[in-house]
């Protein structure tokens, strides 16, 4: 099968948009979670997504990584274009047909991210490749507990990319050095603090040489004094030109480190712009309300 994958990194020239999202829609059963999201991210930008719980920011991130499959719209990330067009009527008919199955699947931790929807082979393979180009970090420190720090980092490159053991160990040590954990490579995850674990997770994602890094509330499960060490790693990556998208509640970080801040509410992007503008002079009244509510 011939896949239309733009591997030439031509997105680096052109319009410089490494991420481009058009009219993205997502339903969870009957709930309309994402309502026509449009988003462009330039290469090397650090984008913070803020908003109340339940506004759809985590879902947006998960759709961009295909952990959730969106219902309609187009996503182009790092040269891979995924596109679907299911109308609202199709989605609701689907829901009626599959309610029982979904209910069953929701109980199972093994639900395939894309098994509720009819997807062609092409989409599967593309989303697979997309995930190798996007590094993802989760809120709840999903290190593999049965592997030590080094094994955590080298596992995916060896399995997925077929790298040699020496090669990936060499890289892993460099990356762990970068996040300040070179002396911890023989430790197991249970022997690490939350901040250290999150930094290992960053190194693990970087080992796949991603084009984009995404973080889903990377610091909200951490003790306050450990937050800074994780944010520092992200700042360093920013300086090196890594494109990063962060869903965060750490306003201080969003304000000082981001190039762009996006405020979401009710499944829509309400406002986006440079942090100075969003934080000191928001245009939309909803943004104002939200920002004043967290200041108190």
């Amino acid at each position, binding site marked *: 099968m011939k896949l239309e994958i733009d591997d030439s990194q031509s997105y680096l020239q052109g319009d410089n948009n490494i991420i481009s999202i058009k009219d993205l829609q997502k339903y969870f059963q009957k709930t309309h979670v994402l309502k026509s999201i449009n988003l462009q991210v330039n290469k090397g930008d650090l984008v913070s997504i803020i908003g109340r719980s339940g506004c759809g920011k985590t879902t947006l991130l998960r759709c961009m990584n295909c952990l959730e499959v969106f219902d309609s719209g187009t996503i182009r990330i790092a040269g891979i274009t995924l596109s679907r067009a299911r109308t609202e009527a199709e989605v609701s008919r689907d829901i009626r047909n599959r309610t029982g199955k979904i209910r069953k699947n929701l109980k199972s931790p093994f639900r395939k991210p894309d098994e509720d929807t009819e997807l062609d082979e092409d989409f599967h393979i593309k989303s697979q490749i997309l*995930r190798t180009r996007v*590094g993802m970090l989760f809120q709840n420190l*999903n290190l*593999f507990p*049965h592997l030590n720090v080094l094994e955590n980092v080298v596992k995916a490159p060896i*399995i997925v990319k077929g790298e040699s053991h020496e090669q990936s160990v060499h890289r892993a040590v460099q990356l762990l050095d970068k996040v300040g954990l070179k002396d911890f490579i023989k430790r197991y995850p*249970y022997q690490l603090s939350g901040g250290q674990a999150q930094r290992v997770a960053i190194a693990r994602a970087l080992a796949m040489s991603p084009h984009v890094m995404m973080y889903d509330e990377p610091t909200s499960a951490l003790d306050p004094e450990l937050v800074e060490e994780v944010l520092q790693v992200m700042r360093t990556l920013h300086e090196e030109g890594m494109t990063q998208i962060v869903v965060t509640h750490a306003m201080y970080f969003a304000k000082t480190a981001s190039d762009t801040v996006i405020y979401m509410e009710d499944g829509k992007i309400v406002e986006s712009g440079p942090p100075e503008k969003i934080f000191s002079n928001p245009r939309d009244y909803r943004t104002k309300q939200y920002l004043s509510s967290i200041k108190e």
Partner: protein
Amino acid sequence: MKNKMKYGFLTILILSVSFISLLAQNHKYILRYGADAESGAPYVFQDPKDPKHLIGFEVDLINAIAEDLGMKAVHVQNEWDGLIMGMERNDYDIAINGLEITPDREEKVNFSIPYYLTYEQIAIRRDQEGINTLSDLIGKKVGTLNNSLAERILRAKGGIDVRGYTDEDKSYNDLEYGRLDAVLIDQPVALYYAGWNPQLKLTGQPIGEISYGIVLRKSDTLLLNKINRSIEKLKKSGKLRTILEKWNLWNFMMESYLDDHTESNDPHTAYQEYLATQGQTTTFMTLMKRYISFLPMFGEAALVTLSISIVAMLVAVFVGLIVVLLRVYAPNPLSKLATLYIETIRGTPLLVQLYFIYYALPVIPYIGVRISPFVAAVLGLGLNYAAYEAENYRAGLFSVPRGQMEAAISLGMTRNQALRHIILPQAFRFVIPPMTNDFISLLKDSSLVSVITMVELTRVYNQIGATYFDYLGPGILVAVIYLLIGLPFIRLARVAERKYTYDKRKIIKR
């Protein structure tokens, strides 16, 4: 990965099958006869002096017939109730074990001409009075053997509380302990199990007429003719009488059957030897010596138990893994099938499954295959425990947090890679303790395979108990052996548990 597992499973199957076929040498000149060594004296039973050696008047008879035919008689163990079924399965060529010639049996199999005629005998306790005829038994609790002529006579009489037994020694035990008022069984059994017992006595006139014949398949007419001719020869030459005299079984019915009314003055050597071993008070030393003499038999049986258990557990572990992967990850028809398998196996008794595999599978048209007792035992136990292992694995899989799968997938792994490298290794740790539990449980459940003719520990215990009327000492012995077999595996599981516990804080100290 699935492929590797499949091949592993196949290899084990092929290995065990070829191992079995090596063991079962189907030599042309061997006459395989089925008999239940537990059914006891004086038919076919273990020599109390050397329990590995079978003796009995039927052993003498079949050896004489085989010698006449230029063959070698080889005993195949089977439960008395299942003797005819076992022959239909071609586990052996003929059955000889006090099988009465009855019209309903003759519909299914061929009988040789009778080799022995006898009658039913009432036995009661020494202190009982007033029981002499069948009519005296009305309203009483009367023990007898299941599926025997005596049982039919008792039921036909009506008004008798009939209690069926599988082992004759247990019916006489119950009579002695007062749980029964009388026992009605074939005269030779009564003679050998009650006749010498000071607590019991034989009473009343002969009831009914029994003729024992050798059982053959309907199709084996050639062999039937040969055996009939042999029996005729033994009748004429006086050899049959010599055998019966030796066992003190010569009676008035045989006198007229052989038309031989000469006085009997044989010393009944075998009967006397048997009596000498019964009812005697044993000293502690002779008892110990006897128990030690059991050890080789128990050792052999323990090996059978152990090999069945290990191979069955391997089957369970691999099949269980395949079943759980199908159930959790496969698309719908397959996953439903896996669920159906688990529910069916868990919802039906293991004993029924064993009978089904051993006796019912071979008779299914076209796909019916005859499998050896060992393979049937291993398949029965293994497929049964596979269902339980599958559920264990499922619990293990569910114990791995969902985030692990997502983290693996977002690193670019496919679901199969994530399963193999991330999920299964973590799940395995959770599964070790319940799996150990199941293995110990399987070790004990393996005693059930004695119903499909496997001679394993429990079966040997039963045989020895029946031979010596001693269930206490051998019982303790067999319990200790089961414990000893299980222990190394419990230790092994501990070691594995420690090894696969990545979080060393979670190791529970013993």
